[in-house]
C-alpha cells in the first residue's frame, strides 16, 4: 500500500518533472494547448525568461523535482550504480592513459627497444605489433566497457527506474 502510494506520487512527480523540463527547455516545441496547461499550474512567469530555468521556476515545482531527486538518491541501488560505474569508468580511462603514455614514453626514452626485430632475421620490429596493439587495446577497452554497461549498469539503472518512478 505504502509502495503503491509512493509509486503513484513518484509518477506524478515524474510527470511534473518532465513537464517542467519541457516547459523550460522545449518551449518552442510545446503546442499552444500544453502551454495553457503549464500556466494553469500557476507558474507566474514564462520559464524560458527565467535566469535559472532548471532550479527556480516556482517553489512548488522545485520541491517536487527535489523530491524525485531525493527519492532516487536515497535508493541504495542508485549509489551502487554511481560508485560502480564511476570507479569502472575512471579505471578504464586511466588504463587507456597508461597504455598510451607508456607507449609514448618508451618512444621518447627507449626507442631502441621498439626498433629491435621481433625475432632474429626478421625485418619487422617489435614496435609494430606494439603500436598496432595500442590501437586494438583502445577498441578492446571500449568493447569491455560497453559489455559491462549493457549488463550491470543498465540492469541497475532499470531497477532504479522501476522502483522510483
Amino acid at each position, binding site marked *: 500500500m505504502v509502495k503503491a502510494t509512493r509509486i503513484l506520487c513518484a509518477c506524478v512527480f*515524474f510527470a511534473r*518533472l*518532465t513537464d517542467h*523540463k*519541457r516547459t523550460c*527547455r*522545449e*518551449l*518552442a516545441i510545446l503546442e499552444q494547448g500544453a502551454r495553457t496547461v503549464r500556466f494553469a499550474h500557476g507558474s507566474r512567469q514564462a520559464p*524560458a*525568461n527565467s*535566469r*535559472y*530555468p*532548471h*532550479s527556480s521556476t516556482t517553489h512548488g515545482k522545485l520541491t517536487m*523535482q527535489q523530491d524525485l*531527486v531525493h527519492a*532516487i*538518491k536515497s535508493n541504495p541501488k*542508485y549509489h551502487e*550504480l*554511481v560508485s560502480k*560505474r564511476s570507479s569502472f569508468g575512471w579505471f*578504464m*580511462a586511466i588504463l*587507456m*592513459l597508461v*597504455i*598510451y*603514455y607508456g*607507449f*609514448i*614514453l618508451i*618512444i*621518447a*626514452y627507449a626507442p*631502441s627497444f*621498439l*626498433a629491435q626485430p621481433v625475432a632474429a632475421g626478421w*625485418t*619487422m*620490429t617489435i*614496435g*609494430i605489433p606494439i*603500436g*598496432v596493439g*595500442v*590501437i586494438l587495446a*583502445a*577498441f578492446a*577497452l*571500449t568493447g569491455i*566497457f*560497453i559489455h559491462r*554497461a*549493457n549488463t550491470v549498469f543498465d540492469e541497475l*539503472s532499470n531497477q532504479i*527506474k522501476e522502483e522510483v*518512478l
Partner: protein
Amino acid sequence: MRLLPVTLATPLLLLASSAFAQQAAAPAVQKTLNIPAIVMFLTFVAVTLGITYWAAQRTKTAKDFYAAGGSLTGLQNGFAIAGDYMSAASFLGIAGLVYTAGFDGLIYSVGWLVGWPLIMFMIAEQLKNLGKFTFADVVTYRLQRVPMRTLAATGTMVVVILYLIGQMVGAGKLIQTLFGLDYTYAVVIIGALMITYVMFGGMIATSWVQIIKAGLLLGGATLIAILCLWHFGFSPEEMFKQATIVRGSAEAPNLKIMGPGTLVTSPIDAISLGMALMFGTAGLPHILMRFFTVPDAKQARRSVFYATGFIGYFYILTFIIGFSAIVFITKNPDYLDAAGKILNGSNMAAIHTSAFVGGPYMLGFISAVAFATILAVVSGLTLAGASAISHDLYANVFAHGRANEQQEVFVSKMSTIGLGIIAVLLGIAFENQNIAFLVGLTFAVAASTNFPILFMSIFWSKLTTRGAVIGGAIGLITAVVLVVIGPTVWEEILGYPKGSALYPSKYPAIISVTAAFLGIWIFSLLDSSEQAKREHAAYEAQDVRCQTGIGAEGATSH
C-alpha cells in the same frame, strides 16, 4: 565534362572570386582532367543530392534539423562519427607520413585514436543524458545561460572556422591535383555542395553523407590494402623487408624506417601532443553534436564502440598503404618529378599507390572518395557552426529563449549560407599560406576551452559560471597565444630567426589545458556569490539525470 562543374559553381563563383581573382589565376600543379574520377564523383554528388531531397522531406522540427530526430542507431551513428573524424588529411596525411618516415606514422595515428575510449568512458552517455542539440546545452544545465552559451559558441566557432580553413585549402589543392580542376572552382564547388546538404537536409542529410563517405573510404582503403598485401603474398614481413631494401640496398637495408625516428624527440612535446589529440577530440563541436542524433545513452555508447573500431581499423589500413607506397613509389619514375621527389608531395603517396595497384579506375575511385571525404567533414563542421549561431547565440542569448522553432531553424539555415561563403572566401584567401599550424591550433583550442568546461560541468559539483567563463577564456587565449609565439607561426610564418620563438614547442596543450583547468578550479572556489550557491545546489539534480537518464531528451517520448 569540364563545363558541368563550372555551371554548377557559377553563381557562387561570381560572389566569391572577384577579390581574389589574381591569386587563383596561376594553377601550378594542374594536370589533365581525370575523367573516371569526375564520373564517380558526379555519381556520389547525384546520390547525396537525392538523399538531401529525401532528408528535406523529413526535416520538419528543430530536432530533425539539429539531431536527425534523435533516430539514428548506434551503428549508423558510429559510421557517421567515423565519417566526421576520418578526414582526407588523416587518410592522405598519415599514409604520407608513413611513406616518408615509416614507423613514426604509426605513432601519430595511435594518438588520433586514443581519445575515443576516453569519450566513451567520460563524455558520450553523459552528453546524451544532459544535452539536446549542442554541447552548450550541457554546460548551461545549471550555469548561467548568457555567459556560458556565449563562451561555448565562441569555442565552437573558433574550432569550426579554423578547421574549415584547413579543410578548404587542403581540398582545393587535392582536387586541383586529382581532377585537374582550378583551385577556385574546387573550393566553390565544395562550398556550394556543403551549403546544399546542410541547409536543405540538416542533420539527416549530413549524417547520411557521412555514413556513405565512411563506407566508401573504408571499402576503398580495404581494397587498396588488400591489393598491396597481395603484392607481398599477404606477408607484412615481406612488405617491411622490401621497403627497407628500397630505402637502402639489398646488402644494407635501411632499418631506420622500422623504429621511432624524429617525430617524438622530447617527451614533453609528446605528452603535449597527446593531450591535444585526446582532449581535443573530446572537445570538437561537430563530434559532440553527433551524440544527440541517437535516442538514448545506450545507443550513444554503442556509437563510440563502432566508431573506435572503424577508425582504428582505418589507421591500420593507412599504415599498410603507406608502407606499400615506400616499395611501389620510392624508385618508380612514373610517380616522381624531375628532382626524383614524389610527384605533388608525400600526401599523394596513398593516391599514387592506388593507381599503381589498381590502375586508372582505382585512381578515379579513390580520388572521388577523397573529394567525398572532404565534403562530409566540412558539412559536419558547417552544421555544428550553424547550430552554435542559431541554437546557442540567437535563440538563447539574443532572443533569450523567446524565439520559436521556425525562427531558430531559419537562422540556422541562413548561418549555413553565411558560413559556407566565409569558408569559400577564407579557403581562397589562404590558398598560398602555410596552414600547417591550423590543425594543431584547432585541437589545442578544443582541448583547452570546450573540453574543460564540458568535463567540469559534468563531473564537478563546485563549478560556477564565473569559474567556467574565466577558466575557459584563459584556456582559449593561452592556446592561441602559445601557437602564435611558438615556432610554427613565429619562425615559419612571421619570419623571425630560427630559435627565437618565445614558446619553444609546437604543442601548447600541456600548458593551455592545465591553465584552463586551474583557472576553472581557482575561480570557482573563489566564487562565493549567491549565484554560485544556487549552482552548487543544482548539481544534485543534474547528476541524477546524468547518471540515470531520467528526464533526458528523447527519454520521455516513448
